[in-house]
């Protein structure tokens, strides 16, 4: 079956995220108060042909380790969709 997989990639905690800081600053200028630690990452949608959600998740994990995320600087999270 075709399984929708959503991969979320964010800069690792503790690393300076200048994009996140710029967005936080801009949101503050618009009057949105009370934010902290805004971080900007990437979202990647995949449709994987797999026998089960567990297999699709394992495949996506390998994709993240080999290409989609940089293990030095980024963390990733995988969600299985409908």
């Amino acid at each position, binding site marked *: 079956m075709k399984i929708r997989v959503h991969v979320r990639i964010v800069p690792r905690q503790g*690393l*300076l995220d*200048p*994009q996140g800081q*710029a967005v936080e600053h801009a949101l503050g200028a618009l009057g949105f108060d009370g934010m902290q630690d805004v971080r900007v990452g990437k979202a990647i949608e995949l449709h994987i042909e797999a026998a089960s959600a567990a297999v699709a998740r394992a495949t996506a994990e390998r994709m993240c380790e080999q*290409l*989609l995320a*940089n293990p030095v*600087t980024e963390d990733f999270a995988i969600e299985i969709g409908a």
Partner: protein
Amino acid sequence: MSARVAVVRFPGSNCETESLAAVERAGGDARLIDYRDTDLHGAAAVILPGGFAYGDYLRSGAIARFSPIMAAVRAHAAAGGVVLGICNGFQILCEARLLPGALLHNAQQRFVARPVDVRIERNDTACTADYRVGEVIRIPVAHGEGRFVASPDVLTQLDRDNCVLMRYVQVDGTDVPHNPNGSTDDIAGICNAAGTVLGFMPHPERLADASLGSDVGQRFFTSLVKRVVTRAAA
């Protein structure tokens, strides 16, 4: 004795012409190699030039790392061959894990294109023999993603093995920030312990001809060509 130096052109490379010219001025046999090639055609050294390979999609260097030519580059490096990555080439070497760490968006979130002062930290490498250790040179940078980061363990190891090749330095009388991108420990370039796999953000090939006002960058290429000629003769 031939001193063949391959310069790889990826889709989006834009510094290959200057790199080829700098090698030729140094007396080397410069060869342009396409990223779809799978062979280095006998080259003793490989340069991965600056540019925006694959449009910097996903992350700088992340896609270029899987180009057909990279298997040959990886084998060449593993055999002790010389591999030099300039700017985007440095990003590719980090993504390919031929060098440790990563290059992230500049801390000020702007592309930076200007001269910088860098100090040469090693001259026992494949491309810095014609500089003095501690020599400060002014050469251009042009990058959006040049902020070197690495885990504390890797930074300790880089220090211990003397793998920092060059650092951004403050020269008296300049009022611009000396570190143009927020790089950790002011690191502008690194190498492996043997000094055969090297990467840095500045562009010596852009200031390598006296008609441009300075040829201070040319010595990277004279060093490189001498090195491969010496090894070929040995």
